[in-house]
């Protein structure tokens, strides 16, 4: 039920209204709105109950295990929230002069330096406002590098078939042509296929390491040598950095541009589509193209670097200095962990994934890459169950909700049929992992004995099985007033 449906004409809640009337007499009449905004008319308690009840219908990391592979749904420490919301941060106007923003600028500068250190990159910019923009910035810098050198025939970007769909999309948005490289049975990039594709037309290679198949790309040094020898550059998708944080660095692997998902590895909130932030890092050769604005240090003072400092920059990614609230949360998170703490993140993320993978295997599940160590996530394929019991990955996922666990990522990566991509993260304890493994064992039993239990699932959630086909075919997200007459009533007399 929408809050608008609880509306009743004339009902008001004045308790939170501002005490002081704001003088608006200097706004030209032509710019004043003629209609009242269409807002729900409810009491304060109605509003509180409405949103509290909605929040109770949610699965969230604060209430349940959320092993959504590739998404790194780790706990967001409360300390990051409270420190990012210190009055000095909240009250700072985005247009404040550098001389009254030294504290804030020093946090951003240190965040840039710490991210550069842990990834082995030369410099970092935090200007991007979301992941898609960060990925775009990475490829745009690679394009700029070739263009400045007059190397205009480099129009091809190589992307492994296991990549996130955002990778080819980004390359195309940058005006490149995408060529897909196959991966072999063990989940590594097919080096022979790569060798046959690189050449004077290659602008670069986009790679996620560990890959979306939940395995580490073992021959990364050969790959980066091969691409560099052909004159191309390497882009690192930081989606799975959590598995190697503080242990192995993209910069040491030969990557030239990286994008980090702060909301994954560095624990900023996974909002409902936002707010996002993008950290991009570069090797020495891409430093001249780094996006602005970003923080720089001069002596013991900090200031924003802009187009005057970096004339060849690919440009300005945000009007101000990136998404302050998100960046500060990442800063506090790294400060709290320290160098050793970040290594523990990778160790426990990998340990949890490998422990759970072993439990699943012992319970009779088929692993997509059996014989390989998991990184921070792993893939189970339910191809056999789909064939023998007509129980699909979707059915298992839906039934998991009844057992009190959010479903893992389903049907991704595309090349593994009926797959679940499972990422427990480092913040889950052994009891929770055991409970998940046991739930999956019980569901497998149900699939064998009474598949209808799975087909009916979920039965314990506020909304039963969602009609995702109808939702995709008849997408309708914009609320419209139900009654025209009600709008007329709202006209200012």
């Amino acid at each position, binding site marked *: 039920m929408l809050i608008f449906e609880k509306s009743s004409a004339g009902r008001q809640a004045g308790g939170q209204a501002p005490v002081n009337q704001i003088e608006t007499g200097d706004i030209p009449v032509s710019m004043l709105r003629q209609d009242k905004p269409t807002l729900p008319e409810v009491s304060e308690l109605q509003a509180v109950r409405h949103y509290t009840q909605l929040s109770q219908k949610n699965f969230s990391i604060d209430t349940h295990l959320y092993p959504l592979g590739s998404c790194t749904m780790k706990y967001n420490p409360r300390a990051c929230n409270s420190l990012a919301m210190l009055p000095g941060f909240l009250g700072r106007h985005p247009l404040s002069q550098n001389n009254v923003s030294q504290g804030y600028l020093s946090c951003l500068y240190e965040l840039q330096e710490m991210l550069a250190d842990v990834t082995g990159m030369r410099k970092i910019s935090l200007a991007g406002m979301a992941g898609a923009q960060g990925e775009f910035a990475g490829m745009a810098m690679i394009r700029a590098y070739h263009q400045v050198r007059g190397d205009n025939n480099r129009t091809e970007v190589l992307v492994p078939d296991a990549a996130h769909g955002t990778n080819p999309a980004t390359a195309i948005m940058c005006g490149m042509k995408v060529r897909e490289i196959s991966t072999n049975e063990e989940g590594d990039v097919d080096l022979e296929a790569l060798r046959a594709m690189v050449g004077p037309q290659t602008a670069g290679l986009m790679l996620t390491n560990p890959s979306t198949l939940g395995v580490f790309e073992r021959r990364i040094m050969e790959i980066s040598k091969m691409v560099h020898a052909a004159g191309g550059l390497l882009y690192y998708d930081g989606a799975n950095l959590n598995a190697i944080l503080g242990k192995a660095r993209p910069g040491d692997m030969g990557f030239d541009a990286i994008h980090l998902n702060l909301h994954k590895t560095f624990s900023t909130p996974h909002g409902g589509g936002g707010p996002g932030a993008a950290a991009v890092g570069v090797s020495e050769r891409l430093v001249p193209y780094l996006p602005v604005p970003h923080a720089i240090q001069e002596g013991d003072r900090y200031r924003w670097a802009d187009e005057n400092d970096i004339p060849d920059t690919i440009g300005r990614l945000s009007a101000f200095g990136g998404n302050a609230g998100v960046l500060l949360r990442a800063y506090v998170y790294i400060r709290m962990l320290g160098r050793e703490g970040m290594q523990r993140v990778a160790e426990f993320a990998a340990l949890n994934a490998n422990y759970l993978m072993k439990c699943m295997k012992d319970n009779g599940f088929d692993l997509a890459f059996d014989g390989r160590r998991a990184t921070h996530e792993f893939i189970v394929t339910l191809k056999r169950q789909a064939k023998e019991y007509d129980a699909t990955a979707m059915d298992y996922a839906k039934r998991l909700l009844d057992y009190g666990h959010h479903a893992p990522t389903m*049907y991704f990566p595309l090349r593994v049929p009926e797959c679940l991509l499972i990422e427990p993260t480092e913040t889950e304890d052994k009891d929770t992992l055991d409970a998940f493994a046991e739930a999956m064992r019980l569901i497998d039993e149900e699939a064998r004995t009474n598949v209808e239990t799975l087909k009916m699932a979920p039965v314990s959630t506020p909304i039963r099985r969602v009609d995702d*086909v109808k939702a995709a*075919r008849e997408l309708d997200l914009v609320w419209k007033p139900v009654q025209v007459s009600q709008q007329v009533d709202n006209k200012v007399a």
Partner: protein
Amino acid sequence: MSEIPADLRYSKSHEWVRAEGDLVIVGITDHAQAALGDMVYVETPETGDRLKAEEACAVVESVKAASDIYSPTSGEIVDSNSNLVDNPELVNDDPYGDGWIFQMRTDNASALEELMDAEAYETFCEEE
């Protein structure tokens, strides 16, 4: 068991091909539509598009995934199934009939000989 008509030829990327001289009709197989699940969107090629063999030329999007459809041979698009714009479910309901995706005039009909026949495709699906 999915339906595999004996009079068609099949590609490794799960397109079916019905050839009449140099006119070629292409769709996706029953096996492919079942694996992909309910279609929510189909993007068809434009009439007049020139295609190379194995070139991605259409997209089928289901609730699970978006997949490219590849041209089985080289040639020019002469028609595409405009009904799929509003009724993508035709690909699920009738993959070999009303769910056809495009028609092309090929300049290399002999390339179609290399595609699988029904028997070979059945084995291919079982092994996959």
